[in-house]
């Protein structure tokens, strides 16, 4: 809770600074419109939280997003109805995640190596089957998923709210959530206690792939483009947000609240720096400093506690 408190305080301070520097930035209208920029980051951060708490990592999320996006684009081009093409894209994402899951849980290869391999392989596959050609010209109705609003709130944000609530409840209030912490704390002990380690790992990576598939579909709707080079490097942003939110990179510790705060802090910093200083390179520096600072803080806090 302590770490979440610190990140929340930082977030408040950033917003106060924003209000002082750029009153226009903190208006509800601007915030709502900018919030869609964080959709992919936030959605992917949820399964990543589970995976990292369980002692794993998924580097292939961005490439899976691209693979799903290309699936959607090619099926749309071939005349498949969009609901079906979207379902297929999410399924391809889930299948890509399941492949990671099998290698991690059944073949027992380290997730860093598995997903490093699929990071390259899925991107290559996406480039290969699309020949690098983007697909655009999605109908208005489909674009609504990414760009539409309900009572002024962008649809992607509504999707996120639901996803966050589900993830929060599952992680903190269910047996499955408890298993995730147990595995991350000590995998061997978890096995001895009868936790279905393999099944949980398989499920987590499949879920991560599914989320990436959904992110690919929403991105296509948001920017009216499905193509093979989307989401490049997003996995590192996602991991940054999750770690910033207090999830231990060694597993066993972390909360969805922390992740949401980490995502919000990165998002607001990124938008504020871009809004006020208008220097892309500065955004990276600020996020780097915040990350190192927060990890130092975490270490300090845990040392004091010990």
């Amino acid at each position, binding site marked *: 809770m302590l770490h979440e408190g*610190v990140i929340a*305080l*930082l977030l408040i301070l950033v917003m106060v600074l924003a209000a002082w520097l750029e009153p226009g930035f903190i208006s509800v209208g601007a915030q709502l419109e900018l919030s869609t920029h964080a959709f992919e980051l936030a959605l992917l951060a949820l399964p990543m939280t589970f995976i990292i708490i369980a002692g794993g990592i998924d580097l292939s999320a961005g490439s899976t997003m691209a693979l799903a996006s290309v699936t959607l684009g090619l099926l749309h081009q071939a005349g498949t109805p969009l609901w079906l093409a979207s379902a297929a894209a999410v399924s391809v994402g889930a299948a890509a995640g399941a492949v990671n899951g099998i290698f991690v849980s059944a073949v027992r290869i380290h997730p860093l190596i598995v997903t490093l391999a699929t990071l390259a392989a899925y991107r290559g596959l996406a480039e290969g089957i699309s020949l690098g050609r983007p697909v655009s010209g999605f109908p208005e109705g489909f674009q609504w998923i990414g760009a539409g609003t309900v009572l002024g709130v962008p649809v992607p944000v509504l999707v996120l709210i639901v996803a966050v609530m589900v993830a929060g409840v599952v992680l903190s209030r269910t047996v499955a959530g408890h298993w995730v912490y147990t595995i991350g704390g000590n995998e061997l002990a978890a096995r001895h206690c009868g936790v279905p380690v393999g099944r949980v790992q398989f499920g987590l990576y499949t879920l991560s792939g599914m989320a990436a598939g959904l992110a690919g579909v929403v991105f296509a709707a948001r920017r009216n483009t499905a193509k093979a080079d989307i989401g490049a490097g997003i996995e590192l942003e996602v991991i940054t947000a999750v770690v910033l939110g207090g999830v231990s990179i060694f597993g066993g510790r972390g909360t969805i609240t922390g992740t949401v705060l980490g995502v919000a802090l990165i998002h607001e910093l990124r938008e504020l*720096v871009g809004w006020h200083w208008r220097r*892309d*390179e500065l955004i990276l520096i*600020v996020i780097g*400093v915040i990350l190192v600072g927060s990890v130092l803080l975490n270490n300090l806090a845990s040392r004091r506690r010990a």
Partner: protein
Amino acid sequence: MKSSAGVWCAALGVIAAVAITAAAVAGGVSGHEGARAETAAKKITICLLPKKKGLPYFTTCAKGAEEAAKELGNVELIYDGPTDGSPEKAAGMVDRWALQKVDVIAVSPNDPEVLGQAMKKARQKGVHIITWDADAAPDAREFMVNQATGRDIGYALVDTMAKDIGGAEPEGEVAIITATLTAANQNEWIKHMKERLGKYPKLTLVAVKPSNEDQRLAFQVTQDLLKAHPKLKGIFGISSVAFPGAAEAVKQSGRSGAVLVTGLATPNDMKAYVHDGTVRSVVLWNTGDLGYLTVRAAAALASGTLKAGDHELDAGRLGTKKIEGDQILLGQILVFTKDNIDDFDF
């Protein structure tokens, strides 16, 4: 309680560190910001978005843009773009600038669809949008500042090659190494190159090969071409990646001078090849002038002196520039040779 006090102190430390970093990197900019507020009434804010920030090509464009902004006096120029070339980040910048109600956003779209979407949204908010260097869909912007038409470039490439090969009737086999087989710009140039080759009946085009924007592939493809066509006299490398790749392959084959390479690239990439004789001419445009013209056009659009349907634009030190439809033409191909290439640093 004691432990949490320590953590709060550390939190303050982090905040201070961020503040210091921000101040150190952006100190100059924030001072500028304050000045803007005072004269906000007359100022025109122009945002110049490159495909990728930090590329020498775009940095030199920005220099010209700054020069125009200074000359005009009432222009605040914002030059920013994604340092990693991500179209999504570039679109995010357009979104933000539109929310800030800047006057003009000039975009060099690295993805016409992703950027096009954001540009249309910005136009709906009443922001003037133009493209420069590369184009997006016509309904996403009002004008395009075009460095050179496909015809200008295609003809200049072929004429340059003919001149380099020399003779009253230049003779020999030539080949083209392009970016990808679907690249719109390159395909447009190739069309005009083929047209222009008609003027030189003894120059025969034997191959058009893709390099997929990969310098190693360009190198390999050129090696293959040299083997397959021993009588090859000239190679066009028509992307900034294909050109140095092709030149390197010819150089390593030891046939520098016997097989001439020409194409489009920035002078710095090609200086070594020009000096060792592998390349006699490099075709490009003056990037500084491109940035300069873009800011001139943007300012004219914001102040109402440039309207749809106009045929001319007063472009300051560049004189009067022609407008064809919605294309504002820089129309100046620059050929770098060993005599002038050292005068350019980009």
